[in-house]
């Protein structure tokens, strides 16, 4: 059916309306004489609409006289009519052809490279590895190497990757990678060190693997106190230094406080907005505006990139980047005392979490709060954890010269 439509379009056809009394006879005689009628519409009081090819149209006239029907051309369709229409506008046709050729040629090059991944540092090293595969802006697509070769180059030139692939989507190269899990670091025992307390605490347990333990269970330690010494006294009166290793767990207390308001600011859109568009052509951007000054006092920004593509993901390298500024009015909404305390508690807990060592265990938590003025509440969070408090401090050996 689709091929039929293409065939009719190429040959050209006219849509005609037949009116009169002997329409059925007209149709039948046409069929008998080999005049192909297609797209025959429903018969109404006004007549019937049918499609007929250009060559057959002139053969219809005798039938029309014989049956006494009337024929009116409604529309001329197809390529012959289009060519006739554009014959006088040759420059337009040439322009269209040039654009088509330019599109075809430009679609053979890579115009943007996208690295898909959350880790910025790793993405940068992947990007530099991708350049070594020959995938860069302006690269000729047919000259690119095979996917497997690109994969091995990326993997060999980037640490901590388990998989990578370059997808060529039209004029866009999309690089996807999978980050590997790093093996635990090898403990560098080449230098002597002590293990000292990172913060104040009450010792819960000490597991010493190398060095001499200086604290016992239930001892109170302050920040900087020696926990496991890397200096070991020898029986001959001398000493030797080692790289102290061990896990020291202690109760620690973290306290944070902050002042929180009993209201929150809400952005309500006013409906006014300004859009600034940038035309993106093969990685070059052309602003479609003169000045992007925004005279809104408060606003939100949203960005959108619409790229032209054929099919699912054959990008042509042409797109419109749209930046929308939406004006908002800031309204102050009062919140309850409890909600303000809850907000403060969550905020302070997040701050404390950033200070903790990995693997810390919460044992106790206290939240206190008080009103400071009509719209401010002071929240204090105290949390007790069992956490590793030891940290390595290198021993700097002082070569004391013998006094003479």
């Amino acid at each position, binding site marked *: 059916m689709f091929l039929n439509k293409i065939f009719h379009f190429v040959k050209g056809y006219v849509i005609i309306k037949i009116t009169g009394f002997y*329409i*059925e006879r007209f149709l039948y005689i046409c*069929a008998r004489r080999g005049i192909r009628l297609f797209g025959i519409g*429903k018969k109404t009081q006004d007549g019937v609409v049918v499609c007929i090819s250009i060559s057959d149209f002139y053969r219809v006239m005798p039938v029309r006289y014989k049956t006494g029907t009337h024929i009116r051309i409604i529309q001329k369709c197809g390529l012959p009519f289009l060519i006739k229409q554009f014959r006088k506008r040759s420059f337009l046709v040439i322009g269209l052809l040039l654009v088509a050729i330019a599109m075809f040629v430009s679609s053979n090059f890579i115009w943007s490279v996208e690295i898909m991944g959350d880790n910025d540092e790793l993405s940068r090293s992947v990007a530099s590895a991708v350049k070594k595969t020959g995938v860069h802006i302006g690269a000729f697509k047919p000259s690119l190497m095979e996917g497997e070769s690109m994969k091995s180059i990326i993997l060999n030139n980037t640490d901590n990757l388990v998989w990578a692939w370059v997808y060529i989507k039209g004029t866009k190269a999309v690089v996807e990678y999978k980050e590997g899990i790093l093996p635990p670091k090898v403990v560098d025992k080449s230098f002597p060190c002590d293990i000292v307390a990172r913060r104040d605490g009450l010792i819960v347990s000490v597991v010493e693997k190398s060095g001499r333990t200086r604290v016992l269970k239930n001892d109170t330690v302050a920040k900087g106190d020696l926990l496991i010494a890397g200096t070991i006294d020898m029986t001959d009166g001398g000493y030797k230094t080692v790289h102290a290793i061990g896990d020291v767990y202690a109760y620690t207390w973290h306290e944070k406080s902050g002042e929180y308001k009993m209201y929150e600011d809400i952005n309500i859109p006013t409906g006014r907005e300004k859009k600034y568009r940038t035309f993106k052509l093969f990685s070059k951007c052309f602003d479609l505006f003169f000045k992007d000054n925004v005279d809104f006092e408060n606003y939100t920004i949203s960005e959108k990139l619409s790229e032209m593509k054929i099919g699912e993901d054959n990008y042509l390298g042409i797109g419109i980047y749209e930046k929308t500024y939406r004006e908002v009015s800031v309204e102050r909404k009062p919140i309850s005392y409890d909600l303000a305390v809850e907000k403060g508690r969550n905020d302070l807990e997040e701050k404390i979490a950033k200070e903790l060592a990995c693997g810390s265990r919460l044992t106790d938590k206290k939240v206190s709060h008080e009103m400071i003025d009509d719209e401010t509440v002071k929240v204090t969070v105290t949390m007790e954890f069992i956490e590793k408090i030891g940290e390595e401090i290198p021993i700097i050996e002082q070569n004391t010269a013998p006094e003479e």
Partner: protein
Amino acid sequence: MSNIREKIAEITEFPKDVVMDLPRIVIVGNRELQIENYKGLLEYSQDIIRVAVNNKQIIITGVDLCINRMESDTLFIGGRIMSIEFCSKNKR
């Protein structure tokens, strides 16, 4: 005459529509109807289409009936077909 042709068709095992000049009708659900070897179009409207075949006429009734394509020996009818009836040539 038709009896002789029928007997010839039975003896020779030739298709009856060829030997007896009968219409061949193909119907797809109640949506499409194809009539081969028709002799003329007698009436065409959205509710009824009358087609002349050898010594008889076929009356097709339905809703939104239309002729999709018309060739010299085949007629393609679309729409919601309600009934197909064979009548003598002089009816209506």
